């Protein structure tokens, strides 16, 4: 009985980690679909979100809802700024240049945090005070519940936004064909900025949920989850929003089960192994479509 309980608990852990990956992966996939670039710095926006929450909650003592709102705004603005300053000028440059620049931005954010907050991990008490519940013999923590609910809501809202609003269809148009979208009167720059803003806002949410779960801040906290979320986005099919969600959840579960039943040290290796396998077997991922190059 307890074996099953254990398995279910691991699955739920996996769902929770996976939800965070999904939230982050959404940002990656949206930016890749619309701006056609991998925003290496995306993972570090999570870190910025976590530190922002810390500043607002622990240092300034603002009420929780205000902190959350401010954190989301800070990250969204940061996303827009980064795009305008570092990526927009390189829209027509070879993708190697953009990739290197994104790496530079990622490094920049990490080191600014390092200089301001120092390397020593800062403990942080979760501001989400939801009680845990017990179903059968299975213990589910409050933060897990909140994470799952928030993720589902975020995904539903995003899907509605993309499919049912004018701005959303503008985003879809730009991702199909930038030139044609511009000719149709769509403000491409504004659309891309909005994409980064939404992606960063989701990253902020991920950061808040992450930090309330792990309760410890460090400048590099975003790097590894960020890369893993990218693996999730690729797994699900980069450019596909349902794919990012699916990829995130699946990857979270794989990681959780690997950690529990194989080895903690190898769990990371397995996650990246998934990436390699996907790219070899079906590069377009579970739900994505490949675009062929014109010869």
């Amino acid at each position, binding site marked *: 009985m307890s074996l099953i309980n254990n398995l279910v608990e691991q699955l739920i852990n996996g769902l929770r980690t996976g939800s965070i990956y999904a939230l982050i992966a959404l940002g990656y996939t949206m930016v890749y679909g619309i701006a056609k670039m991998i925003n290496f710095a995306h993972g570090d926006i999570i870190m910025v979100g976590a530190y922002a929450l810390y500043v607002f909650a622990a240092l300034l003592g603002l009420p929780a809802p205000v902190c959350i709102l401010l954190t989301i705004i800070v990250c969204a603005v940061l996303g827009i700024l980064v795009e305008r300053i570092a990526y927009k000028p390189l829209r027509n440059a070879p993708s190697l240049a953009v990739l*290197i620049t994104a790496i530079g*931005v990622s490094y*920049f954010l990490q080191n600014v945090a390092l200089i301001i907050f120092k390397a020593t991990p800062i403990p942080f008490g979760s501001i989400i005070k939801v009680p845990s519940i017990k179903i059968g013999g299975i213990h589910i923590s409050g933060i897990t519940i909140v994470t799952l609910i928030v993720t589902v809501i975020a995904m539903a809202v995003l899907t509605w936004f993309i499919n049912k609003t004018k701005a959303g269809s503008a985003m879809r148009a730009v991702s199909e064909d930038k030139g044609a979208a511009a000719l149709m009167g769509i403000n491409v720059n504004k659309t891309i900025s909005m994409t980064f803003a939404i992606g960063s806002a989701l990253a902020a949410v991920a950061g808040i949920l992450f930090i309330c779960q792990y309760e410890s801040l460090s400048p590099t906290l975003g790097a590894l989850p960020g890369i893993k979320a990218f693996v999730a986005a*690729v797994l699900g099919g980069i450019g596909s929003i349902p794919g990012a969600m699916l990829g995130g959840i699946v990857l979270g579960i794989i990681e959780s089960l690997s950690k529990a039943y194989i080895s903690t040290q190898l769990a990371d290796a397995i996650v*990246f192994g998934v*990436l390699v396998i996907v790219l070899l077997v079906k590069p377009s991922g579970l739900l994505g479509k490949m675009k062929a190059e014109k010869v």
Partner: protein
Amino acid sequence: MNKKINKSVIINVILALVAYGVVMALIYGGLLGRQAMSIIIPCCINVMLAVSLCLLVGFLGELTLGHAGFMSIGAYAGALTTNALDLPPQIELLIGLLVGGIVAAVFSLIIGLPVLRLKGDYLAIVTLGFGEIIKSVINFLGFTGGAKGLSGIGAYSNYKNFTFVYIFVLLTILVISNLVKSRHGRAICAVRDNYIAAEAVGIKVSKFKTMAFVISGFFAGMAGVFYAHNVGILKPGNFDYNKSIEILVMVVLGGMGNIKGAIIAAVILTALPEVLRSAADFRMLLYAIVLIAMMLFNNSKFRMAMIEKRNLKKAMSIQKEGE
């Protein structure tokens, strides 16, 4: 044509000898403090790493973020070999270098083969992934000492053995410079410039991508062996994503397809942190800003305008010649 080649060969030989002379004078003339002496070998190691990465990023045109991973494979393989042997240091190190280089090359091959269909962004991420996988696995394996590290490595490549290390640095530079000016090097550059056209003229992209990876991995592995025998202890954490980025910065700063540039950048970026010891945190920040600034400048309207002006001038003179 031949006269040009011979002249540059002579110049390069003179440069190499002068550099050697200067460093030897600095070491044995007692002109350097302890601190300064200790960066000589790291400079050499980083030159080897930068030049080998330059082959991939500058000449093959592919961004790889797992270079530190091959360095670590070489380091561990070499260190385990010398730890197991009981021979005179130079010989142990030589064997260790060969083992380290070859093992790293073999892994480059294993990793490279499946991965080489990918391009650009995907290749970069996968190499990053492999770097992390290598780190994880080394952490996990017992005989590598795991997280605690592999210690007790002989100090065979400290500044006292500069000559030995320098020879291998020169070898790295020689082989890769020569390769680039050969038919194989041209094939690699063709893959970078236009892989579809390359295939159309009979250049098999996967073959030359693999070739570049394996050669690059071999020299990274040897650099790793020197590293191991310089610091005396290896921990998986030394060879992470950050190290790969550090080397990338050197290659980018040196001007991507520019071997001499990579060498100079490697030396400066190894020596500078020691000079700027107190501003360690700011160093990384500076790296980040430099990376961004370089990319923005390279692709800026200003530079584009400069290049176009230059092209136009050249084109006009070509037209004039044709008339």
